[in-house]
């Protein structure tokens, strides 16, 4: 079936190919228009696909394009699965991507590799859409690794800066470690269920033993921790802030890093088979949310704060998945995409205004210079802090209510995280927009300037979405809501459906109180401070010394082992033992080098003699 959904996928691919092959002579305006237009059209077709799906009775449509490979029972098609989950993902991925493409035209203006930036960006959107629209795990893996490699290119975009090059490599390698999990999950599922396509896996999942199901869930979780920057593989994400800010907004906040959440949600029927697997997922999510939030309180680089905030928010989503509240996870994913993209783009606007400065100690008092960035940033700040009526309040509330129903300790951890979230975001807000003007040195005394319209229009649109986004899933509406739409995919309603209205209101009050606590603390501490050793612990600033620990326990020993391999094992042990025959020859070869042909002749003669003896023996024995 030639379905519109294929166009969602093919347009960014076309944009990528056109800019790659024919973009060399084109102006920035043309390249930006092609790139943004392709993704914008892709969004339009996502909407068409969504409406089409609503008009159907069947909520699952498989669109097969061609057979990718078919070997010995392993049949993998390039095929799309159009269902509520994938359409929801496609809608918000293309929508956010289109806005960020538009923003990038302004942000990347005059960059030496403007064309290459849009090449990568369009390829990224194509890969991300492949990831969410694929009807089987192998094709999802294509997108999964595709977004990883685009992320690698875009983090290492300023490749002549060593820190950027290293960060790009780190991002890819950490992702790859996670990919082992996804690969093993595929191997195991195929060996037990003889298929990799989602719907067939779900049909046959009942035959999995509980041990196998748990191993699959834990393997998928490993994959998710890599891609979605969760403990223990979270520490590539802050380094990835080396990339241009639109990249941080699109890839490292709104879309790619949520792929792990998507994957786990997609595999919900398998997760349902393993209680212990799901519990592990929930704990990883809750702990990551908390740990990352503590780290965010002590960062000085505006983008690093946002990066750890992203890790923390995705922790919430993973927690929700573990609690079985898949639609809450997706709700927060969408709301987070709105307000976190807005925060990153706003911070990009700030950085743009300050000629590239990212240290919050050199900001302050920017509110009156950035008349559009300031109010939109304000909305995003209130949203992520959990203040009603912004989208963040509803989405986070949904997650925490479900956490409460699932496990009280994890709920407490979640509320603590909420306090910290409001605190570190308010700190960022105060240090950037309020207080004294500390940027004059950076701008050489000039007033900072607001960004051009291509950059501010996306800010305004995202601000509107952040303000009103909560309506897609209000807790008292059960039909025509996100949860209701996703219900066919996830099979059962989340726990909140059973919670009483009173309990929900009570929990919402707790959320608001937590947010206000954090806000108040931040204002009282940071209103008159720029830095403070008391409130910026170096243990937190150094990311709980996570990198140091990895380096000491894994990185350095492995490097040393490899070096020993290169200098000792390889030349001395293996060459020595295996070359016992050759070793003697090699010694004599030193003297024989001048008469190599003579040596070869001797050797050949010895060979022939030796073989003859063996042959005679064999013939005698056999005959």
């Amino acid at each position, binding site marked *: 079936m030639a379905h519109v959904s294929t166009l969602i996928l093919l347009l960014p691919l076309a944009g990528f190919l056109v800019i790659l092959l024919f973009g060399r002579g084109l102006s920035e305006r043309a390249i930006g228009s092609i790139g943004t237009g392709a993704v914008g059209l892709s969004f339009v077709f996502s909407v068409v696909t969504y409406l089409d799906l609503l008009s159907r009775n069947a909520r699952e449509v498989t669109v097969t394009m061609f057979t990718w490979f078919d*070997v010995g029972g392993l049949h993998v098609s390039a095929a799309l699965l159009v269902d509520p989950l994938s359409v929801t993902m496609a809608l918000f991925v293309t929508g956010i991507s289109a806005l960020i493409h538009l923003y990038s035209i302004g942000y990347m203006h005059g960059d030496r590799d403007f064309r290459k930036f849009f090449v990568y960006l369009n390829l990224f959107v194509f890969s991300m859409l492949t990831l969410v629209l694929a009807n089987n795990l192998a094709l999802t893996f294509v997108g999964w690794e595709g977004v990883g490699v685009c992320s690698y290119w875009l983090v290492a975009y300023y490749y002549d800066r060593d820190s950027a090059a290293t960060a790009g490599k780190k991002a890819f390698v950490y992702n790859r470690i996670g990919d082992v999990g996804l690969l093993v999950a595929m191997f195991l599922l195929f060996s037990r269920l003889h298929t990799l396509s989602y719907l067939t896996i779900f049909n046959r999942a009942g035959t999995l033993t509980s041990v196998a199901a748990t191993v699959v869930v834990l393997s998928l979780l490993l994959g998710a921790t890599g891609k979605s920057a969760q403990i223990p593989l979270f520490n590539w994400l802050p380094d990835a802030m080396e990339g241009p800010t639109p990249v941080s907004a699109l890839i490292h906040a709104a879309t790619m890093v949520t792929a792990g959440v998507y994957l786990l949600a997609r595999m919900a029927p398998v997760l349902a088979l393993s209680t212990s697997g799901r519990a592990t997922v929930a704990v990883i999510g809750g702990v990551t949310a908390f740990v990352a939030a503590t780290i965010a309180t002590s960062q000085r680089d505006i983008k690093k704060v946002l990066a750890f905030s992203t890790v923390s928010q995705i922790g919430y989503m993973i927690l929700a998945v573990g609690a079985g509240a898949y639609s809450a996870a997706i709700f927060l994913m969408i709301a987070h995409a709105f307000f976190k993209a807005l925060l990153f783009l706003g911070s990009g606007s700030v950085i743009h205004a300050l000629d590239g400065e990212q240290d919050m100690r050199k900001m302050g008092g920017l509110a009156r210079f950035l008349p559009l960035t300031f109010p939109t940033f304000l909305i995003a700040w209130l949203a992520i802090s959990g203040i009603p009526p912004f989208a963040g309040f509803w989405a986070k509330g949904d997650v925490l209510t479900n956490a409460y129903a699932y496990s009280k300790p994890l709920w407490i951890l979640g509320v603590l995280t909420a306090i910290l979230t409001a605190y570190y975001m308010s700190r960022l807000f105060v240090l950037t927009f309020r207080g004294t003007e500390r940027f004059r040195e950076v701008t050489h005394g000039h007033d900072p300037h607001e960004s051009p319209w291509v950059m501010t229009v996306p800010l305004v649109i995202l601000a509107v979405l952040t303000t009103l986004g909560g309506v897609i899933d209000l807790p008292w509406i059960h039909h025509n809501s996100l949860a209701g739409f996703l219900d066919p995919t996830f099979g059962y309603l989340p726990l909140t459906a059973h919670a009483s209205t009173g309990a929900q209101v009570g929990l919402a009050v707790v959320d608001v109180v937590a947010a206000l606590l954090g806000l108040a603390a931040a204002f009282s501490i940071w209103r008159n401070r720029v830095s403070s050793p008391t409130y910026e612990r170096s243990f937190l600033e150094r990311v709980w010394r996570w990198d140091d620990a990895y380096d000491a326990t894994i990185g350095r020993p492995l490097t040393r082992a490899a070096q020993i391999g290169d200098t000792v094992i390889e030349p001395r042990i293996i060459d020595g033992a295996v070359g016992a025959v050759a070793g003697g020859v090699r010694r004599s070869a030193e003297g024989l080098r001048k008469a190599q042909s003579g040596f070869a002749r001797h050797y050949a003669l010895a060979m022939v003699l030796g073989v003859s003896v063996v042959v005679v023996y064999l013939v005698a024995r056999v005959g």
Partner: protein
Amino acid sequence: MHSSLWLTVLVWLPLLGAAAALLARRRPGAPYAVAVATASVELALSLVVAVLYNDHLAGAHTFDFVGRWVLAAPFGLAYDVGIDGISLLLVVLTALVVLLALLGARERRSEAAFVGWLLMLTTFTMGSFVARDLLEFFIFFELTLVPSYFLVAHWGGAQRSRAALKFFVYTFAGSAFLFTGLLYLGFLHQHQAGGSLTFADAALASTSMSHATAVWLFVAFAIAFGVKSPIWPLHTWSPLAYAEAPTAGSMELSALLAKLGSYGLLRFAVGLLPLALTTVRPYMLTLAVIGIIYGSALAASTPDLKRLVAYSSLAQMGFVTLGIMTGSTIATTGAVLLMFNHGVITAGLFLLIGYIERRRGTATIADLRGMQGPAPVLAGLFTVVMLASIGLPGLSGFISEFLVLVGAFATHAWWAVVATIGVVLAAVYLLWAYQRVFHGQARDVDQIPDVTHRERWVIAPIVAIVVVLGVFPKPVLDRVTPTAHQFVESVTPAGVNK
């Protein structure tokens, strides 16, 4: 069924070309032109054969282009050719790599002797891949040693004589085991079946033997093929030889001659001695996995790009061995496809390293830096081939590796899981090398011109194959899978779950 004439031309045409090149040696440029023309015709012929094999697809599990002539009955010497889905890809690979090796190595490598040896090597390699007779295979297999020895010894780097010697000694010593083994097998068969001595594969496969005999013969075969492939720990000749050989030599050694090893392991060790499999399988799988991890670790710490590719080949060929020894249809198909993909990708890597050497005069990683700024197209080409080697889905390397691992996991889960770690390590050593070579700021930017048009066209086929086979491998797999399936059936005892 097609005429065996096609294969006969494929095998012997390069030898004629070599003779013509030598005859034309007085005219400058003529030997090179003759060689390129010969290699082009060879590639065209191999593609025609691949296309003709198409209408054989219904019976793709059997041989096509078959012909057999007994040359010297008392010695069991015969000329017996044919191809099936396993050898088809390698025939095309042989023709492709030799043409690219010639095109990629124009300057000062255009002497008659150089192109002559290269073409001669093509004949011997081609002969090995189409041989359906163990003795005939052995003769071609051994003869490849001569031209490759001279290619390394005469046109190699500073340590070329040591490298050539080590390569020669290792391979030759390995062959002694193979020769002994094949004679034993031949005589055993004659003893059982009567009649004259024969080494035809089909005949030898029917030989009955004790389990212990099968194991010993397998070990003998595996040593010979393990040196060539290489299989850990018989690989130590390869980093030196790959690093010291000229670009064309490295391409031939790694892309083609290594495949003789894995091909031999599959076709003869596994194919003729299936009885040994139950015993040797765990050991061979373990060696394969060690090779993957060990090769990757050394690739990460070696200071030279060519040595890096040598160690990476050890790891990649570990995946091939893993697939071959797993012995399911999926894994075997993956292994055969991986032989082809690894050949193409490694040829591409060595070609690109040749481009780098041409610009910087060295392949030492520490001396290269910041090439992406002045040479973005070279960086881009390197990236694509590198990502294929890393196994990025959408490029060719992924599917073969994936099939091997999926197949291996079904029966040998732990080996497959450890091998999967090699997937991470591949990213580590290649990206790290890429960073040190291409990222950062170059010291002498003006010395680094980007790729020329000619260089671009030479690497283009490799990039095209890497992309096309990554997205749409079906036509190739349709040719390999039936043969692999049939092969697996024939070596699996009845009643064993595959």
